């Protein structure tokens, strides 16, 4: 059953106001030049409807940067598992970030399941928002097929080209209840659906494959690239700061750390985001490191986006959001890396002939 409703642009602020009365709402908010962040909002005026990917993706709500797992008491020899969550609505999630959440869902529901993540995710309502424009030169959402909505939301907003109306897809019962409770939506007409189609048609014109290889070609390209020269180049440039993994919507690696209180008896064990770009990450006790070189660690990051998950989950873990390239201090660029691999492969094939 396909269900669409519409919301007048002039009712948008009121919609967010009513939404925020149901539970906490977060949405993209402007933060200086070309920077945006998901933050709590209470009115539509706070929200940037035109925005390029936020500094941090919405994963921060699904797997917090610091999450307490266990409380302990040394004297009593007690360990108490801990799981904290908050009811939340995320408004304005672009299709790239919806894909990112879908990737995380797959990882954390893979056995053994991560209950902390799975409980929290079901307390979060997701309202997607369609990109009518192309973000910038860093984005590569088309080649990984994330430029159009592909599920993973409760409601999905598309603004018409005239920018006077939102056409809203209701995808779940939770989404339907948000529509019902805010009482601002009307049923769609045939005319509205044509407007939706017009948006999608225009997107076909704007969104083109960003690299010199297509969707199907990405995995084989990366799978063959272990010995490629590109990694030597990245080895020289990467400063191992970990920015790329922090801002990635599908990087989920973490460290587990114990904190002890001043009583030296009670404390918490927590997990926090970690980065495979640091040398310590894969070091075992005794000092052996299995990815000693920065180039190896960059290669590992790329393989985790384009090669390994394709084998394990049958999808790419690169959402095409472009955050890693946008944030890199050494100007390592995902599209350039991919195109360099394409070039290198062409040369190898050329030499073989």
């Amino acid at each position: 059953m396909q269900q669409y409703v519409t919301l007048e642009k002039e009712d948008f602020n009121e919609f967010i106001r009513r939404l925020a009365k149901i539970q906490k709402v977060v949405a993209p908010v402007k933060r200086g030049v070309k920077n945006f962040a998901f933050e709590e909002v209470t009115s539509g005026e706070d929200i940037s409807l035109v925005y390029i990917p936020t500094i941090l993706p919405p994963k921060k709500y699904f797997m917090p940067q610091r999450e307490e797992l266990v409380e302990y008491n040394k004297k009593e020899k007690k360990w108490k598992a801990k799981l904290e969550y908050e009811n939340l609505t995320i408004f304005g999630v672009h299709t790239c970030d919806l894909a990112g959440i879908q990737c995380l869902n797959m990882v954390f529901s893979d056995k053994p399941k991560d209950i902390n993540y799975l409980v929290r995710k079901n307390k979060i309502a997701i309202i997607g928002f369609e990109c009518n424009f192309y973000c910038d030169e860093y984005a590569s959402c088309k080649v990984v097929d994330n430029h159009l909505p592909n599920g993973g939301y409760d409601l999905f907003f598309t603004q018409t080209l005239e920018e006077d109306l939102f056409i809203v897809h209701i995808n779940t019962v939770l989404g339907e209840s948000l529509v019902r409770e805010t009482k601002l939506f009307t049923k769609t007409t045939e005319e509205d659906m044509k407007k939706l189609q017009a948006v999608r048609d225009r997107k076909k014109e704007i969104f083109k494959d960003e690299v010199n290889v297509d969707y199907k070609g990405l995995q084989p390209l990366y799978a063959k690239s272990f010995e490629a020269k590109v990694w030597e180049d990245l080895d020289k440039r990467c400063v191992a700061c970990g920015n790329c993994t922090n801002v990635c919507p599908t990087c989920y690696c973490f460290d587990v750390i114990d904190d002890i209180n001043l009583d030296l008896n009670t404390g918490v064990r927590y997990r926090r985001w970690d980065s495979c770009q640091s040398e310590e990450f894969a070091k075992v006790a005794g000092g052996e490191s299995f990815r000693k070189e920065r180039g190896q660690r960059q290669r590992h990051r790329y393989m985790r986006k384009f090669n390994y998950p394709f084998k394990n989950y049958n999808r790419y873990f690169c959402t095409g959001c472009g955050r890693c390239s946008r944030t890199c201090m050494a100007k390592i660029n995902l599209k350039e890396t991919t195109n360099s691999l394409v070039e290198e492969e062409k040369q190898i094939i050329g030499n073989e002939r």
Partner: protein
Amino acid sequence: MKKTTLSESEYIIKEGKIVKIRKLTEYEKSFEIVLAGGESLDHEPGQFVMVSIPGVGDAPISVSSSPTKRRSFELVVRRVGKLTDALHKLEEGDSVGIRGPFGNGFPVQRLEGNDLLFVAGGLGIVPLRSLINFVIDNRRDFGRVNILLGCKTPKDMLFGDEVEGWSERLDVNFTCTVDKSDPDWKGNVGLITSLIPGVNLDSERTFAVVVGPPVMYKFVIKELLKKDIPENQIFLSLERHMKCGVGKCGHCQIGEYYCCQHGPVFSYDKIKDNVEAL
């Protein structure tokens, strides 16, 4: 709006009581542990547990005892990092936190009925011991058993009495070597690879199980392949850094595999093309 807290997660930690500590060498101690309530760990040979000390952290430690011993299990720990340092300071009667067992363990069912060649280098004997003792406890279910053991010096030899027991058994061929001898040593001197050519085996029905430091694998595998042991009959247990034990934290990743979930035991054919494995 308020945050809600539940007390459930996969990070449930069981209390393990240390009932016995043995000092094996200057750096290694053995800890015999009983779970609270007398519950059996119920592990497979080659699996590991995450050992927790509150305020210090947790780390993966392989179980060294055979599951045939059900009431307690043994961990053998070299003092080499933060957690193992703290572990070495504990005394009998103290407790640690235990999660697990984790990992796939050795493929016991596949080994049954076949000849076995165990190759242990250095600390590799610690996890391999769980399988060797399991095989000895179920001796008639397996074919010929060869054990090759190597360590740096005679002083580094772990489980001296037990190893002597293996060497005296009629149903086990046991050979050991040290890299560097001392005046009292009467056995072989040389790297463990030097022992492999001399083993008399039927390659078709031999499964080799190899555990040792990373540098050892390449050389041992080369010798085993020379003996015509098929690639899918060579099993290795790999060591990696781990934080969660449940295939999420990413630290133990070896190419497309998580060492804690898909391993730590891998057959050679599965990882020979994996550039990060060996």
